[in-house]
């Protein structure tokens, strides 16, 4: 191995480590929100109910960050592909999708468990929760369709287009749910962070779609 190659590998390792640190920092930041910026619903809970509710919110916020990672992994960002290379990033995208599904399944159980699974009537006041329910179903369907793509009667390119469009809908619904379901995100730093994350994801989506439309090989 030449010294040039060795330097490049070392640099990649350092940059890879920095990326992982940044990812952990993002997750830790998201996890801290239900502790530092307690919503009214958390304030009114005690004991196990409080633990359940807060854990449910942590799960939901983790999903939000993992959705960002999900998009980042397939955005063909040059520096990421140089550090991690394309195939491992794609594998991460696939495994991350499964991790997301698990968290999505747990999130409503914890949130609703904190209120003893009280019924949500079909009323206007519960619309952010219903957006969440729609998102839940859509995400499960989305992950299943990706996992069992080979069994679907769709050409790869058609499936990919549907997958990309689905991603736009899911991210849109996610941010609506996030910004309106909890008063933590009604203002202040949490709202600013959520909007910044939404902006970053919009940028990544534009990058993915422009690459798909204009066929960049970069």
């Amino acid at each position, binding site marked *: 191995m030449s010294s040039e190659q060795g330097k490049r590998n070392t640099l990649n390792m350092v940059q890879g480590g920095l990326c992982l640190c940044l990812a952990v920092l993002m997750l830790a930041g998201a996890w801290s929100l239900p502790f530092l910026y307690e919503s*009214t*619903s958390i304030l*009114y809970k*005690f004991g196990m*109910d409080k633990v359940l509710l807060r854990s449910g919110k942590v799960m939901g916020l983790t999903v939000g960050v993992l959705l960002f990672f999900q998009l980042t992994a397939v955005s063909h960002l040059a520096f990421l592909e140089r550090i991690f290379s394309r195939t491992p990033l794609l594998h991460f995208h696939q495994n991350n999708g499964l991790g997301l599904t698990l968290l999505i399944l747990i999130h409503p159980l914890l949130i609703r468990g*904190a*209120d*003893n*699974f*009280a*019924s*949500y*009537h079909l*009323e206007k*006041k*519960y619309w952010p*929760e219903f957006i969440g329910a729609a998102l839940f179903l859509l995400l499960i369907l989305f992950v299943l369709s990706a996992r069992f793509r080979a069994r679907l009667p769709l050409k790869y390119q058609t499936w990919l287009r549907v997958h990309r469009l689905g991603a736009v809908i899911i991210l849109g619904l996610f941010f609506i749910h996030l910004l309106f379901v909890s008063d933590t995100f009604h203002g202040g730093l949490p709202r600013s962070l959520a909007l910044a994350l939404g902006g970053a994801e919009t940028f990544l989506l534009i990058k993915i779609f422009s690459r798909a439309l204009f066929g960049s090989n970069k």
Partner: protein
Amino acid sequence: MKKLTFFVFMMFFLTSIPAMAQQWKLDQVHTGFLFEIDHIYATIRGQFTDFTGDVVFDPAAPEKSKFNFVVKTESINTNIGKRDIHLQSDDFFAARTFPTMTYTSTKVTKTGENRYTVDGKITIKDVTKEMPLEFIYHGQKENPMKQGEVVTGLDSHFTLDRLAFHVGDGKFYKMGIVGKDVKVLITLEMVRDK
């Protein structure tokens, strides 16, 4: 045999006429089971939107009257979704375990000009208590909105201690957040065929 059958039928018909005539149907849209309770310094108002009532009322013969209500606890509405879900939870109404609150009258007496006292039992969660309700009778007339129908109205204001009915274990009260005395207004608008 025919005469006997006719006699029994007529007896049944004649004795049931007064009760049938006084059977009122709740106008669901204009009847309310409303409440207000203190929250630190503010007053929070809400209502239960799903209820049924079996009301027989004749102002001239209160002894034949009855006021029975069933209110669904999960229909609590304070206009804030998250608060309503919390109120349905085990912290307050435990709506899954106790889906209804009931009031069953045992005696109705006239106590003054347009005033009636309804003695009865109220059941909220696992507690049943005797609770007399004072009703103000607003009169009755032909329904201005529908010919051939009579409309009447009664109101009852009372206060109950939610902790006496296990609606909450008192932690929010001790913290000075949610009051224990709940002001209740039952406002009835009822109709029957003329």
